[in-house]
């Protein structure tokens, strides 16, 4: 177990820079998830931490010790690869024992560690098998087991669930969370799936274009996204982001017909300035008769039984998603008025930065 400090990490391949100065501190025992769209540099960052990529500039420190120039084999970290990277010619047992042999451990010690990990991961019956003879989920667990036996300073996970089917992914996700609770190790986890990030992380690091967009607990990111990117990325279905103009103190006008919506934003912005109004589908409510709000025409209704989704449009606005509890009687073509509660509104300025709330 250890803490990790990244300071001023940059990485270039030739003339293209893929990581632009990342600073991050991961505390001992923390579960940190790097999330972002593909190509955002999250995997590269993980590989830099692992020592599989050399850092162009900046410093990586583990427990305060600079390891930037150490090769992967000497950093004492363990990694679970997206492809699992199980040695196909070795049995499950050998796969897990390989690193321990390299560390020069005695055979009984190796045996004890492997069997403990195998028990923890329900692999005891498969120890003699080759990876080829295992199911996807079992391979996944072997890959994790290979990391566990090492008792590494930090666990690194590179999209470990992306090769599993949906059902198994959910199950394994839960197991991983349980494992972290049990082992308590420092873990860094890379994924493009924000649900994984939300469910697993102590803290999430949102990356885009080689830069950190925001760092925070899952609920921080959900409740108070720093910028448009994080707002759009975290939460499912996506937050509705409506282009708007400041129309007066505490009001904005949205859409072509300039429907006025009240906001609680104390903006240092002058009327007429362009902003983006954000609101999550689950925070939108249908207006009761006579209540003011935004009027839209329903294009599509999805009824899931326990909840319903309305997809509506208004002139000059992108599609608006509304999530309603229970079942709804509204149908396609209906015109409804929606209420955007001020407490749940997010307002972003022209540069995409979140504006302060009252």
């Amino acid at each position, binding site marked *: 177990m250890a803490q990790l400090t990244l300071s001023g990490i940059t990485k270039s391949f030739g003339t293209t820079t893929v990581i632009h100065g990342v600073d991050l501190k991961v505390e001992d025992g923390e579960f940190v998830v790097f999330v972002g769209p593909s190509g955002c540099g999250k995997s590269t960052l993980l590989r830099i931490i692992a020592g599989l990529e050399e850092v162009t500039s900046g410093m990586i420190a583990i427990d305060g010790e600079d390891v930037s120039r150490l090769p992967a084999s000497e950093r004492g970290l363990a990694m679970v690869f997206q492809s699992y990277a199980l040695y196909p*010619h070795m049995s499950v047992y050998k796969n897990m024992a390989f690193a321990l042999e*390299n560390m020069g451990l005695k055979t009984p010690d190796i045996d004890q560690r492997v069997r403990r990990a195998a028990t923890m991961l329900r692999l005891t019956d498969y120890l003699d098998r080759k990876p080829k003879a295992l199911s996807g989920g079992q391979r996944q667990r072997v890959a994790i087991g290979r990391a566990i036996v090492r008792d590494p300073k930090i666990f690194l996970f590179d999209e470990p669930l992306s090769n599993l089917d949906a059902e198994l992914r959910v199950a394994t996700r839960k197991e991983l969370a349980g494992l972290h609770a049990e082992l308590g190790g420092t873990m860094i986890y890379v994924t493009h799936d924000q649900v994984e990030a939300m469910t697993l992380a102590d803290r999430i690091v949102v990356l885009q274009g080689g830069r950190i967009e925001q760092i925070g607990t899952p609920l921080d990111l959900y409740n108070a996204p720093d910028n448009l990117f994080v707002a759009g990325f975290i939460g499912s279905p996506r937050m509705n982001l409506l282009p708007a103009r400041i129309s007066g103190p505490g009001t904005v006008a949205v859409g072509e017909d300039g429907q006025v919506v009240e906001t609680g934003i104390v903006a240092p912005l002058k009327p007429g300035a362009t902003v983006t109004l954000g609101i999550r589908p689950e925070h939108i409510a249908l207006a009761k008769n006579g209540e003011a709000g935004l009027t839209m025409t329903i294009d599509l209704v999805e009824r899931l039984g326990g909840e319903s989704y309305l997809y509506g449009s208004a002139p000059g606005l992108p599609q608006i998603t509304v999530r309603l509890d229970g079942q709804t009687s509204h149908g396609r073509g209906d015109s409804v008025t929606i209420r955007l509660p001020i407490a749940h509104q997010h307002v972003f300025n022209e540069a995409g930065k979140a504006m302060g709330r009252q």
Partner: protein
Amino acid sequence: MSRASQLMLARRKAGRWHWTDIAAYTYLAFGVVLMFGPVAWLVLSSFKTQAGLLEFPPSLLPMSQQEVMVPGNPQPLPLFEVTMEDGSKRVLAQVRRIGIQAQMVDPKDPTQQFRVPIDKRVPVRQFKLATENYTEPLERFAFTRFLSNSVFVTVVATLITLLINSMAAYALSIYEFRGKNTAMLMVIGTLMIPITIILVPVYLVITHLGLVNSLWAVILPGAATPTGVFLLRQYMLTLPRDLIEAARMDKASEWQIYWRIVMPLAMPALAVLAIFSIMWRWNEFLWPLAVLTKTESYTLQIGLNAFQGELQTQWHYLLAMTVVTLLPVALVFVFLQRFITTGIANTGMK
């Protein structure tokens, strides 16, 4: 289209013999005779006695004259079928030949003696394998030595070839390093330089190393083969990079990654190279011929060549030893035929 008509069409097509089909099978049958025949003839001949080999026209199977022990004669006597004066036929043993007469004896009743003109007797022959063709040269001549030399050269050279070429292939497939392209170019370059055009200077190098007439002189020059490097490199390039990185994370040294991860996984390619190397080395001729001048360091191929070059070619021994020489290759072929042919088809090497 209905299934019935489909079936009918298929049958009509399958049943119809185009003249090209007949030509093809004729060609193939001819091929079997032409390709297998000579080797089969070699093997059959190798079991014939020295006398049997001198027969003209030759008999198909290895036959030799039957002999019997007759009381009163220390040596076994050859048996003949004799046409007697009265036209009856008897089987007699020949005691000695005097001019055009042969003195013969009935083996069942040694007291009965006959004088028979030699053109009235026909040898009684039986199928017999002259295995002494195989045992004698191995005992009396240096063929055992040649055989063990050949085995030594083949085994050691193949091991060295596998080791150093896989190391180079590993370096050229897994790493990025300065000079990689130069190294690749050098490997490609050597592909163009057969031993035939550097015979003399390689001989000089071997002399400098003091290895003339040593088996190492045969082993070393061909150990680094560009074909081998290429074959292995192509294969190693297909191995997932994740495995190598996983091994690095698992604290494996580079040598361990090479030996414990990449080598076992490159086994199919290594096997192909091993088979080729075994064939190259076992069959190698020109270079050993140039560098091995002492009989005790000859390989089988050189030994065979020297044996056939002697004034009186002892074909019965020579043929048997030729069979011994082709035996390992034949065995390899029987078991690994498909493997070898696909290997050649995929790599274009021989």
